[in-house]
């Protein structure tokens, strides 16, 4: 609002909620509103809440703009754009006292709110012969005016975002714009305007950056958008996009790609991941690279398909029979999603191990600003010093005969692909010798198991060179919040507000023990904040000799709002 509420972390400029029935374009409205505020130079974040319903259920987005980097939503909002009455009923408690509500003129009389502005939406649409779905465009027009945005900016964004019936949309927006007057002024900020993308898009771009050749998938919320996105740009990037018959086929086909030397990634959620676990174990044994994007949502089973959770950490760490190294990172925002997807793919190929990017619905489907500078260069890290057997080119430089599982110091064998003139490449799901031939010999078995597990040690060492544990250094260094994944946003912001330290391990396997230890220096009280019922990260760190003494858990599928988390943290540290 105009009179900004100064907060410790920087002024919160505006929180806008747009809501309506599924299918009414709420999501698209959220994006347009977000871009609008983003273009004014604000740091923007969009939280999206929608049910597993194609039409009719209630859905809403909260667009938040602030001066500083944010990645969380507030409970409280300044503006409600109510595409239907239910939106107002469900969310009116969020509206600040001085907040405003835009609604259809016919609802105006019904909504008892003093600052409700009725827009003659139906009338305008009728006059413009516009379909009902343009209600939201019209309302966005009105909103732009209310907060004093120049129509040309809105028009630019509309033209960018609405590729169908663009002219009519612009017209309808203009009509909405003209129905109201400026209520408050949002001053543009003089700072760099950053891209605004979803976590899923960041993952997709990261994979391409990491050298992706093929994305293989079967649709499953919340990773389906990666499939859609990459399918859309596959022509430009020269990617194979395969939507196959089921998740078993997905991972096995991807492993076929890997065998033939092409970098493949797959994406799924819990149920599909279950079906991939046998292939995951095969990747472990055959030493085939593969990257799995595993998007969490509340379970067990089908659960709440379109909501969020952090319940698969331990499952992902232990999935698949037998013991084999895997890389697992849980990025906390778009830059991390990009960086670790790219680096994860590289790691998978350098170490010939499966890599898992553990995402969740909130990370995947929220919009985040993307700061190139913060994202870092996923190619900067030298994963393995040459002499220790770094060798992932087809030209193995070795004397023939080629042996796929040649024993080396780091356990990493030369990786070649067919056709290899004069060489034979055998991979095997059975225990095998260096040439890839089946064995049941006890000594051979031990040697090969050690070989594979050795790679984890080298990987852990290599990862020492990059930041695997993020911290926010609050004034109070004795009290710390522990978080992972999409909880980074709320925790960092609450930590900043309350002056607490915040610790967020991004890499969860191999566990960055040293960096975690270092982050804990001076911390007396560690509170884990997680979207699950059993504090999975809290349990995991016990394996490495650390312990959280408090836990703030949430299991309703919704992310922490800042207010909610702040209150709980205050309670926990009291």
């Amino acid at each position, binding site marked *: 609002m105009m009179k900004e509420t100064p907060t410790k972390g920087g002024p919160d400029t505006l929180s806008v909620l747009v809501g309506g029935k599924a299918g009414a374009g709420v999501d698209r409205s959220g994006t347009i509103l977000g*871009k609008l505020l983003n273009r004014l130079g604000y740091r923007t974040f969009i939280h999206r809440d929608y049910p597993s319903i194609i039409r009719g259920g209630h859905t809403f987005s909260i667009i938040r703009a602030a001066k500083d980097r944010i990645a969380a939503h507030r409970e409280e909002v300044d503006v409600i754009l109510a595409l239907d009455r239910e939106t107002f009923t469900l969310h009116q408690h969020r509206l600040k006292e001085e907040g405003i509500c835009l609604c259809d003129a016919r609802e105006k009389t019904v909504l008892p709110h003093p600052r409700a502005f009725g827009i003659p939406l139906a009338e305008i649409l009728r006059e413009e012969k516009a379909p009902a779905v343009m209600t939201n465009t019209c309302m966005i027009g009105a909103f732009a005016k209310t907060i004093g945005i120049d129509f040309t900016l809105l028009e630019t964004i509309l033209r960018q975002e609405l590729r169908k019936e663009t002219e009519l949309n612009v017209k309808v927006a203009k009509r909405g714009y003209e129905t109201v007057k400026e209520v408050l002024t949002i001053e543009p900020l003089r700072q760099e*305007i*950053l*891209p*605004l*993308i979803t976590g899923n*898009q960041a993952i997709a*771009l990261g994979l*391409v*950056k990491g050298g992706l050749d*093929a994305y*293989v998938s079967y649709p499953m919320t919340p990773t389906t958008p990666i499939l859609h996105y990459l399918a859309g*740009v*596959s*022509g*430009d*990037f*020269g*990617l*194979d*996009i*395969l939507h*196959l*018959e*089921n998740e*078993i*086929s*997905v991972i*096995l*086909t991807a*492993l*076929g*790609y*890997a*065998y*033939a*030397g*092409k970098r*493949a990634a797959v994406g799924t959620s819990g149920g599909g991941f279950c079906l991939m676990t*046998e*292939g995951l174990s*095969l990747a472990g044994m055959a030493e085939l690279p593969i990257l799995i994007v595993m998007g969490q949502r509340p379970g067990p089973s089908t659960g709440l398909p379109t909501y969020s959770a952090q319940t698969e950490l331990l499952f992902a760490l232990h999935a698949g029979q037998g013991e084999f190294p895997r890389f697992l990172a849980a990025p906390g925002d778009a830059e991390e999603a990009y960086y670790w997807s790219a680096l994860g793919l590289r790691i998978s190929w350098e170490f010939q191990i499966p890599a898992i990017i553990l995402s969740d619905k909130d990370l995947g489907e929220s919009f985040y600003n*993307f700061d*190139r500078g913060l994202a870092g260069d996923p190619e900067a890290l030298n994963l393995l010093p040459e002499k220790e057997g770094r060798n992932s080119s087809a030209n193995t430089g070795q004397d023939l005969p080629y042996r796929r599982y040649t024993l080396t110091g780091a356990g990493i064998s030369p990786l070649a*692909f*067919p*056709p*290899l*003139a004069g*060489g*034979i*490449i*055998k*991979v*095997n*799901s059975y225990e*095998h010798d260096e040439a*890839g*031939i*089946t064995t049941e010999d006890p000594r051979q078995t031990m040697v090969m198991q050690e070989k594979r597990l050795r790679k984890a040690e080298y990987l852990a060492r290599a990862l020492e060179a990059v930041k695997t544990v993020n911290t926010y250094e609050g004034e109070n260094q004795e009290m710390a919040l522990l978080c992972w994944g999409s909880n980074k946003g709320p925790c960092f912001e609450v930590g900043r507000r309350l002056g607490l330290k915040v610790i967020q391990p991004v890499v969860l396997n191999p566990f960055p023990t040293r960096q975690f230890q270092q982050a804990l220096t001076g911390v007396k009280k560690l509170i884990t904040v997680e979207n699950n019922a059993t504090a999975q990260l809290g349990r995991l760190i016990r394996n490495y000799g650390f312990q959280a003494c408090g836990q703030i858990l949430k299991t309703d599928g919704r992310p922490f709002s800042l207010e909610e988390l702040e209150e709980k943290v205050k309670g926990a540290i009291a």
Partner: protein
Amino acid sequence: MTAHNFETSVLNTWCPGCGNFPLLNTVKTVLQELGEGESPTRPENLVLVAGIGCHGKIVDYLNLNSFYSIHGRVLPVATGIKLANPDLEVIGFAGDGDAYGEGLEHLIYAAKRNIDITVIIHNNRVYSLTTGQFSPTSPLGFPGRSTPAGSPEPPLNPLELLLAGGATFLARGFSSEPEQMKQIFREAIDHRGFALVDILQVCVTFNNLHKYYAERVYTVTDHDPADYLQALNKIKEWDYGAGTGGAGSGEEKERIPLGILYKREAPTFDRRLSPGGGRSRAATQEHREALIEKILANSK
């Protein structure tokens, strides 16, 4: 260049008399000859994929590129390899439990998509490596170890199923007739598209049907494999013991047609994937990275 040695020094542990031996030998001959023709396929361009079962051991016995996959998953692996590099000649070896049971769906989808690979089924009509349970093609009433009183379900006719699924090449061979297997394998490999060869492979230990087959098999002649109805008729001529209450019941002597039963031309998946869907591969990593930046710049 010296000739490629197709043999490995691995001890063969199939039972003496197993139908997998002639199958292996025939495959070896065919692959050897592949490297000798006019437009030869070099051994390094061959990739074998195997499932888990007695059949799978074949890849240990052949000194060729191979992917020893997991039970039931020959097809998706073979699909991935072929799509990743269409220049490779990919040949799958699967068991009846493997391909018609555990992983049947993949087989049908490989046919539907017309993936340009060859799949050879070691159809011994029993789960051998797990010591003798009934399989998807065991006759009704088969007394396997999981069904001592007789299996309660009729067999699938895999060729009929795959015909319905859209396969473009279907053939049946018999492990005791290597010459015919050789011809079939050759044509199957030559075929542009999905080729499935169902080999009646004798398992001497758990389902010794050698005599039973020997008395019934014949090679199709005057048969036009391009004719769908003729193909269907031939395929349905023998029902794998669906109605007989057990192979060898001997009530009436069915005849078992062998040979190439169906064949047609159709676009393969890798070619269909190309036009719209990317695969330009021309896209260099530099090009891609520039594109990423452009996309980001446009996301404001």
